[in-house]
């Protein structure tokens, strides 16, 4: 057999073979890989729509496609990236894989529900793809009424159904994580010893559970309105289209925190490991996750400042939006304090983590611009908003996702990826990302509206820069696809703790056995208990 001493004989990947053993698995680790495969597919599909958008925007005229087609491009890009990639990404892949192991459990609380949630996700994704093939949707991912409920001629109900179904996948994942963390922690694993990855996933689960049902019923109402013309969002019949926006954003704002909070959990793990130090202010970071989850539900009206929402309500939402920035800032300061006098090394995951901190900070600060009523009135629906959320979602969430994938890749596969290519693609991604989206801040501030396929000539230079950046970014994403798959077969065997990190997942083999541990661990030390001499303290 293999000559290395480190790969275990039997582990969760080779314990049985065959399609049925994967499609009917109850092992949270295999389910995580099922998600990884399908999410990767949707990521590149969403990316394809982004390519088409950026191609059109290379020239000021609408010469690549008609306006209606362009509307479908940005709608499908948004729908696929948000609902079928970003929201599930870290929780369904890294969360599913790591939550039970990090707390010392054999599996999630409800393994069959876990598998069901993947199947639900596939059904929802299939329905949405049918909507794409049948001609797409052109309402924007936000499905604003009365266009979506009354006037749109595209496949609103079909796409809405796909999202509705996938919402249940989200709810089940959140439910599973929440119950697992509450009831299945190993002896000695108190709340204060939990990795911050767990705290952030716990907080994310709260949001998934309390928010997703509201968007579900909202989609149902839009569908009912389309079929029966009931008037619930139609002004002609006494309805209020803004009510849709309230219901939609009640979920969709927490949804953006669902997308970023797990990435923040990843970053905490990476910063601690690659500084060889416990995260500074552990309790502050843990509670800030909960604070983000709670406060995130109070701010949705900041998406509606110019929608005829009452200015008094807007005032309240604006102030609350400033408040919700505080816990995020607390995290950033604590990560920086962790780095200070730490023993820092620059493996691929750390490059992603560093990139995250800078890009998330920019994204977050520009969020404060948008929370300011007087500024938002001018930049709402411009590329300033587009740049803001891409800094958070791509510069933040996706870099967190990739950093986590690389960090735990040795654990998940038992193999090492090639470090040179890892670092190279991280840098390419960082450069490509900034080239793509920084110009968009400038464009937006100068007034270029979003969701338009034409623009005045004087903005072409910045748009071309952005498209060039997107090409670089695309290459940056393709390279890991290649070497990660390559490493599954040809990578060096990893050993149980390649990074020398703290955490229960590093105390079992790589890959882990099906039941995660040979013996249920007993936890006796605090989280991130790196030896003092490992860091340069004093």
């Amino acid at each position: 057999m293999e000559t290395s001493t480190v790969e275990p004989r039997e582990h969760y990947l080779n314990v049985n073979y065959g399609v049925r053993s994967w499609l009917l698995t109850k092992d949270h680790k295999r389910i995580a890989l099922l998600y990884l495969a399908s999410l990767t597919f949707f990521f590149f599909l969403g990316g394809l729509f982004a390519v088409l958008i950026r191609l059109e925007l290379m020239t000021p005229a609408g010469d690549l496609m008609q306006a209606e087609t362009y509307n479908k491009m940005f709608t499908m890009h948004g729908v696929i990236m948000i609902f079928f990639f970003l929201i599930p990404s870290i929780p369904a892949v890294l969360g599913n894989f790591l939550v039970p192991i990090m707390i010392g459990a054999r599996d999630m609380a409800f393994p069959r529900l876990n598998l069901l949630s993947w199947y639900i996700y596939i059904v929802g994704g299939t329905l949405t793809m049918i909507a794409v093939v049948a001609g797409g949707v052109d309402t924007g991912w936000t499905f604003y009424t009365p266009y979506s409920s009354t006037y749109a001629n595209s496949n609103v109900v079909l796409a809405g159904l796909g999202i509705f179904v996938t919402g249940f996948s989200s709810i089940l994942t959140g439910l599973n994580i929440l119950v697992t963390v509450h009831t299945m922690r190993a002896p000695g694993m108190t709340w204060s010893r939990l990795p911050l990855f767990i705290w952030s996933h716990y907080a994310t689960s709260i949001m998934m559970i309390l928010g997703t049902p509201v968007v579900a019923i909202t989609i149902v109402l839009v569908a009912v309105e389309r079929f029966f013309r009931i008037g619930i969002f139609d002004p002609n019949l006494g309805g209020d289209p803004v009510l849709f926006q309230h219901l939609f954003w009640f979920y969709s704002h927490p949804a953006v925190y669902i997308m970023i909070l797990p990435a923040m959990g990843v970053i905490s793990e990476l910063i601690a490991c690659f500084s060889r130090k416990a995260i500074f202010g552990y309790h502050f970071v843990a509670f800030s996750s909960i604070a983000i989850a709670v406060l995130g539900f109070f701010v949705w009206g900041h998406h509606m400042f110019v929608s005829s929402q009452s200015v008094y309500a807007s005032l309240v939402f604006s102030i609350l939006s400033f408040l919700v920035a505080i816990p995020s800032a607390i995290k950033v300061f604590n990560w920086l304090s962790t780095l200070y006098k730490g023993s820092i090394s620059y493996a691929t995951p750390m490059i992603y983590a560093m990139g995250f901190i800078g890009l998330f900070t920019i994204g977050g600060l520009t969020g404060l611009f948008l929370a300011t009523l007087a500024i938002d009135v001018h930049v709402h629906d411009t590329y300033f908003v587009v740049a803001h959320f891409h800094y958070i979602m791509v510069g933040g969430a996706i870099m967190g996702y990739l950093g986590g994938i690389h960090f735990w890749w040795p654990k998940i596969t038992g193999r090492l990826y090639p470090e040179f290519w890892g670092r190279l693609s991280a840098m390419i991604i960082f450069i490509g990302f900034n080239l793509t989206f920084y110009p968009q801040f400038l464009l937006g501030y100068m007034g270029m509206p979003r969701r338009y396929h034409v623009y005045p000539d004087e903005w072409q230079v910045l748009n071309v820069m952005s498209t060039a950046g997107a090409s670089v970014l695309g290459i940056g994403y393709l390279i890991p696809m290649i070497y990660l798959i390559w490493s599954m077969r040809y990578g060096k065997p990893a050993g149980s703790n390649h990074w020398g990190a703290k955490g229960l997942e590093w105390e079992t083999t790589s890959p882990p056995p099906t039941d995660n541990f040979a013996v249920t661990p007993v936890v006796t030390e605090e989280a991130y208990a790196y030896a003092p001499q490992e860091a340069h303290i004093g």
Partner: protein
Amino acid sequence: MAQHIVTPKTYLQVFAALMVLTATTVGVAFIDWGALNTVIALVIAVTKAILVVLIFMHVRYSSQLTRIVIGGGVCWLLLLIALTLSDYLTRGWQAVMGW
């Protein structure tokens, strides 16, 4: 699993109370007390719900965690209602002159 076992007698008592409350809410609906009608109807509905939750659903004998979960869900519903209404109820307010 050891859980407190509620007796059929208690269940029947709660059922009787729920019937009385149902009769009351229907009866009150026929009397015109203006805005108070809605308040009374909601108070009765909440009382019925509390009885079902505490006794039929055994929450009276459940853990603190269960109560926090229920409290959280109810609060979140109230949050959705309150903040959405903060828009609708203040749309008609006049701007303060001179600002």
